[in-house]
């Protein structure tokens, strides 16, 4: 179970208040720094900080300036002492608490505060935006098909594959070339590169992913798929990878009619690999 929002800012505020009330001379500057930063982040004055970074980073990003981890962890560590003190029964007195001495009191205090942290944070111990590794080579399940390609050690080969596969191709091997990069379908990456792609690359992207418009007439559709296959062969795209469900009627017929690409036999893969002869 994953929640979309947590309460760490509230914990930070509580810890900051605690720090302010119990501050020594040494921690005074830290408290003042936190208050000043909070003022900038919570008020429109924070816009000055965003302008300072030429709006390259959003408002969310500048919250990293707040020493949330330090202050909250300090607050919890300081509170632990108070909680364990309250839970420990002093010798010779009748009071609510545990008999196991200071050690057990500390342990209980830690459990209580850890539970508080857990409830205020993400309730998932596992991944939220990452996915489990399926193989030893570190490829995600969707891109595992890359491991089945025969990549020459001293040459480069072109690959045309669906997005979920091609986004890992250049990370997996520098010998795999792509007609277009991830910045074609991830516009955020245009901040990293000035290179752009023409309409032909966009049509290749749509074709291999099975998106966009296709001729409705069966005969025209087969001819349309065959044209793409011929263009790919002409451009020297060595590997074509299609999702299994993409190899439907028209593409299946076009592949059966041509002799430029041969199908590689790969079992247990949701993809079909075609190699240039």
């Amino acid at each position, binding site marked *: 179970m994953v929640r979309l929002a947590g309460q760490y800012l509230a914990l930070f505020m509580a810890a900051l208040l605690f720090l302010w009330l119990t501050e020594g001379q040494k921690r005074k500057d830290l408290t003042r720094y936190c208050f000043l930063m909070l003022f900038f982040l919570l008020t429109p004055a924070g816009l000055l900080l965003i302008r300072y970074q030429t709006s390259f980073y959003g408002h969310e990003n500048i919250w990293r300036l707040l020493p949330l981890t330090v202050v909250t962890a300090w607050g919890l*560590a300081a509170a632990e002492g108070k909680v364990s003190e309250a839970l420990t029964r002093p010798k010779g007195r009748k009071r609510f608490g545990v008999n196991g001495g200071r050690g057990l009191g500390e342990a209980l205090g830690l459990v209580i505060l850890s539970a508080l942290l857990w409830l205020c*944070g*993400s309730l998932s111990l596992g991944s939220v935006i990452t996915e489990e590794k399926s193989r030893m*080579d570190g490829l995600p399940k969707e891109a595992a098909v890359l491991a089945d390609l025969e990549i020459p050690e001293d040459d480069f080969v072109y690959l045309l594959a669906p997005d979920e596969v091609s*986004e890992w191709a250049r*990370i997996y091997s*520098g010998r795999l070339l*792509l007609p277009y*990069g991830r910045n074609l379908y991830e516009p955020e990456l245009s901040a990293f590169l000035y290179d752009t792609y023409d309409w032909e690359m966009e049509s290749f992207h749509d074709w291999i992913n099975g998106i966009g418009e296709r001729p409705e007439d069966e005969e025209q559709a087969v001819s349309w798929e065959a044209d793409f296959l011929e263009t790919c062969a002409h451009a020297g795209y060595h590997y074509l990878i299609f999702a299994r469900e993409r190899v439907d009627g028209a593409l299946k017929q076009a592949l059966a009619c041509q002799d430029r690409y041969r199908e590689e036999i790969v079992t247990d893969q949701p993809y079909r690999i075609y190699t240039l002869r």
Partner: protein
Amino acid sequence: MENARTTLPDKIIEGSLAVTGAAEAVHLAGLFLGLPFHVCAAVLAALLLCAVLCAVGIRMLRRKRKGPEKEKRAPYRALFRDHPFWLLLLFLLVVFQMVWYYWAHIPCIKNDITGETVQTILTTDRLYEINPLTGRPFSNGMPMRLKILVLPTLSAFLCRLTGLPVMTVCYSVVPCIVMALSYVVYLDWAAYLFPGERKKRFFFLFFVILLYQFGTYSLPLDGYTLLFGGYQGEAVRTGILLPYALLCCLRGRKRGLLLCLLAEVCVVWTFYGLGYVAVAAVFYGAVRLYSRWADRRRAAW
């Protein structure tokens, strides 16, 4: 100036930042002089070897000069000897995080081209002459503000040095190093916030680990950046540079602050060298000015 004394965590962090600086110098030389990557890697390896030899030499000289009684000072050893349970618990928690997030899971690669860049550097033996996303020559190029960043070159250097695959170095080894250094920074924070209270230091570190672990629900949280994108410059800034810079400000360690300022320019995009560390330093400067003014006013009363 007790706080300005150099501790073991200081040495580790500042040493790492100095390595980043050396790598940046070699990276820039390779970039502007068009040197092949294997030359840059050899120069960097030679520089690091020299640095290690110099550090060992200086340490031996100091030992000779200070005499045997100074050698016995080892506060961290005592800390580990007195609280082995806590040490084991924290160690296991950190190992769990590293294994779970960096070895058992695949990171999010959206909005990042580090993996492709490292692979391209290793394959072509050149720095930024080929489009990392396609493997073909650039048609329009790449912004210089990104070309000057050193992390891909440093990762490629690690790949060359260890022989490990790019995916392992970028998405497992580098995040582990960043996370370990981040905890070293917080070890220093623990010593600063709880002087003489050893158990409290362990509590502090325990809660830092939990804050990372459960603080993955939102982008600005340190846990989110470190656990899901530990290989990025953003993680170095969030987990190491910003907390260490603030600690240096509080302790009056100008050298550490300067190293953080420079390291930020090397690992993540900044506005003409003025990044978040500079903002934090300016804010802290304002706080110090106010504190001095307040103290003077109190004294006048």
